[in-house]
């Protein structure tokens, strides 16, 4: 089982990302769960979402305390949330950032890190900084839990081709640092 935690802000679509990932995994024949951190979500406030993916049915329903991967949709969260809280020692941090690799590595010296400038890509493709679809690409590059084709299909069905482009470009441009 792989457990993923999404960090975003109210309005940025972290919950939708967790769901699209689960949907794609389901199509790829996996068992899945996708759920938000339960509670009222206010615009701007830090939010969490989760995805579980496994090869066998998932029965447990406790929270994800020790994720394998965390995806951070907005770097400004780093100053307010400990995004690596509970992250497994061999876990991965996936970041949306324009910072360069060395800077990023400095922030997370102990973890495998992947990064992409999803905001720029989204702005270019969508005209708005909607990074949740894009960051699915970064995640897949860092942790190829499912096939890119399926996730592209799911994103395309739910949104549109521009989002798929955004996803693809982010996927392609994601750097994985060890």
């Amino acid at each position, binding site marked *: 089982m792989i457990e993923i935690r999404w960090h975003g802000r109210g309005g940025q679509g972290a919950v939708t990302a967790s*769901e699209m990932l689960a*949907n794609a995994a389901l199509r790829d024949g996996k068992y899945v769960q996708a*759920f*938000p951190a339960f509670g009222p979500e206010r615009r701007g406030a830090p939010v969490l979402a989760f995805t579980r993916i496994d090869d066998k049915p*998932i029965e*447990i*329903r406790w929270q994800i*305390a020790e994720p394998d991967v965390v995806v951070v949709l907005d770097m400004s969260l780093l100053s307010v949330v400990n995004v690596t809280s509970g992250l497994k020692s061999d876990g991965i941090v996936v970041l949306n950032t324009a910072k360069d690799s060395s800077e990023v590595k400095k922030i997370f010296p102990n973890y495998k890190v992947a990064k992409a400038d999803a905001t720029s890509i989204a702005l270019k493709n969508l005209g708005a900084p909607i990074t949740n679809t894009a960051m699915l690409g970064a995640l897949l590059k860092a942790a190829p839990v499912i096939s890119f084709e399926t996730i592209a299909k799911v994103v395309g069905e739910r949104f549109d081709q521009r989002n798929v482009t955004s996803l693809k470009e982010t996927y392609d441009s994601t750097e994985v640092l060890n």
Partner: protein
Amino acid sequence: MKTILLSGNTSLSYAVKQLDVDVISAYPITPQTTMVEKLSEYVANGELNAEFIPVESEHSALTAALAASAAGARVFTSTSSQGLLLMHEILFITAAMRMPVVMGIADRAVSAPINIWNDHSDIMAQRDAGWICFFAESAQEAYDKTIQSYRVAEDENVHLPVNLNFDGFILTHTYEPVTTLDDEEVLKYAPKKIRSLVLDPKSPYTFGALGSPEYYFEAKYQAVKALEDSFDAIVKADKEYKKISGRGYGIFNAYMTDDADTILVSLGSIGGSVREIVRRMRRDGAKVGSLSLKLFRPFPAKQIVDTLLKTKSVVVLEKATSPGAISGPLHMEIQASLKTFDVTIPAINIIAGLGGREIGPEDIRIMFNKGLKVASQKRVDTIMDYVGVNI
């Protein structure tokens, strides 16, 4: 049949759509809202040919559902917590008037303090209302049980309202794979039926007359009996459903109970987590078992007791309290059931998870260990215990 990603809420909505419900009457409340939102969408798009009544309160939501049912329609409503409490008065009336209303309940803690997270205080406070009462463990089960609910509610030998409980957020907001039936299959299994006692100018009947002391007791008794007698229809509906879907749930899920030293009884979404801990503890040699109840009303006392007969202790985990009572509602009923069948196995009560307090793997282990301790000591120190509270 196809398998799609649905949440507890949207799986119910999907089933309601397939069931070709005629009238939906509901009022929003967290964490039930996404269910009615989806239904609104179906209706707005013409995918479901129903009337959606956007009532001004839950009291009216259930009233309108009851009245629509009295007029012969297939109806649905849903709510949670404060909304369910506001329906209290009408819950009793719906059952005694024998209306096959189906209601989804996204179980949530009750005020005060206001809290939007899961526990079972809301439905437990309605346990005298005379409804058939199911609990689901997953979105799949929520879907399946919704379909079964109509079959049971509308059964000529039943004609009672049914509520289907699924844990707020934990189930309502978790997306997971749900294997659905085809529309025709759903309606073949739970066909719409023509009832004869309905509000129709062709049959000028009077509903809701005053029952003086000369008649009331018999009327009430009739409704009580109907609920007791619904048991067979419930079991049958589940069996037949299994035939068409491959999925049946029985009245509870008994897991590794045969040789267990202690059995943990629970309700709702925690069942799967408990079974996982059973597997883990069994690996370490602890003989523990799980009984996850699916049917709460009518209460299957005999069947539960039979399953507990050979164990050494029972732990009743519940997400509700009855302040000032000897123990929590579920424990009290199981304790009374054991006594009624002359079973002296000690049974303790653990209250946990109130107001959405997380019940993690360690907590469940603690509970089992308490049960094991009672089993070995053959003695109960504290009948009602709390796990997870910061005293």
